[in-house]
């Protein structure tokens, strides 16, 4: 009960910050995504109430854009850059290795909630291709070999 009120209260705060403006829906959802690392259903209901937007409209926007996730994301977002330069340097091999090592498919989160695997286009670090970004940190010239050690290090950090 307490958790639900907190989400509602935080959402109210965010809506107010953006001037209670209907057209700020995307910016509001971005702030909620950043706060909770996903879009909790209670938050979306609260947004609908606060901005007087039908739930179907909010759901349309929340599911249209890649930034938003309706399910909690892992602690570390593992983003494999699939830009053209990285693709040409074998990014697909990195993605496959990560899928195998983390035992999840693209878009999924590991059972211990540590990692969510996604594809991203493009980080614009083409001189460092192929690139994988983990928890916001860029790993340049990545080879398949280095992946187990890197994942181990992130796990240690917890």
């Amino acid at each position, binding site marked *: 009960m307490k958790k639900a009120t907190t989400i509602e209260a935080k959402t109210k705060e965010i809506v107010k910050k953006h001037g209670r403006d209907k057209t700020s829906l995307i910016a509001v959802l971005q702030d909620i995504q950043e706060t909770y690392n996903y879009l909790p*259903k209670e938050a979306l209901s609260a947004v609908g109430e606060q901005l007087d937007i*039908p*739930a*179907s*409209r*909010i*759901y*349309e926007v929340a*599911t*249209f854009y890649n930034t938003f996730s309706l399910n909690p994301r892992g602690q570390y977002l593992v983003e494999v850059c699939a830009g053209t330069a990285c693709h040409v340097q074998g990014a697909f091999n990195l993605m496959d290795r990560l899928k195998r090592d983390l035992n999840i498919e693209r878009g999924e989160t590991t059972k211990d909630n540590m990692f969510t695997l996604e594809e991203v286009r493009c980080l614009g670090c083409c001189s460092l291709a192929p690139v994988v970004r983990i928890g916001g940190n860029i790993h340049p010239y990545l080879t398949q070999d280095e992946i187990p050690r890197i994942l181990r290090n992130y796990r240690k950090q917890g």
Partner: protein
Amino acid sequence: MVNFIIDGKKITAEKGTMVLEAARANGIDIPTLCAHESVSRSGACRLCVVEAKKGKRAKIVTSCLYPVEEGIIIETKNERVMNVRRLVLQLLMARCPESEVIRDLAKQLGVDPQPRFNQDEDKGNCILCRSCVRVCEEVVGVSAIGFSCRGADKAVGPPFNEDSAVCIGCGACAFICPTGHIEMETTEDTRKIWGRTFKMKTCAVCGRYFAPEDQLKYISKKTGVPMKELAVCMDCR
């Protein structure tokens, strides 16, 4: 008034008329799927395309949204136009292989299915024309259903794919759907749609079930007309 040509025929129409309407008013048929007179236009299905020639430039446009222009030359059935229509129908047949409406329309226009296109099994008869969403938003005012996701995953339904919390059971979406994709089950005293079962109200005069209670409640709330007055069916009014 605007003067222009469709399929070699000289046409006159009021400024602001869409080519689709101007053509139909002059006996020239253009097939459509997503255009309906009750709702705004979106130009999504691309079936009503025509070629519009202005000077040296000829472009393919959807006639449902293209306003008539002085001196423009429209062709509704040339090779380029038919190529697009053929592709659209072949793609829709692959998307909705069970849809009789699309199959019949294709047959009428002499289009065979394309065997190289993989057939979908999970799209039902939905061609994502958005008519249902628009009627619920613009005419009914409830916005119970909407689109979600994008691209191939785009789908229509209540938010979160859950039973609709706000649907009033009016059935406008099922009525406007060009392919009959939306399932609405009506028994004597109930109506099932979008996961909800609605109790039907009886007419105060003839006693027949005629509309969901929730729909009447909604209209009453919106218009201020009391329920008692609304509980009379169309025939008895």
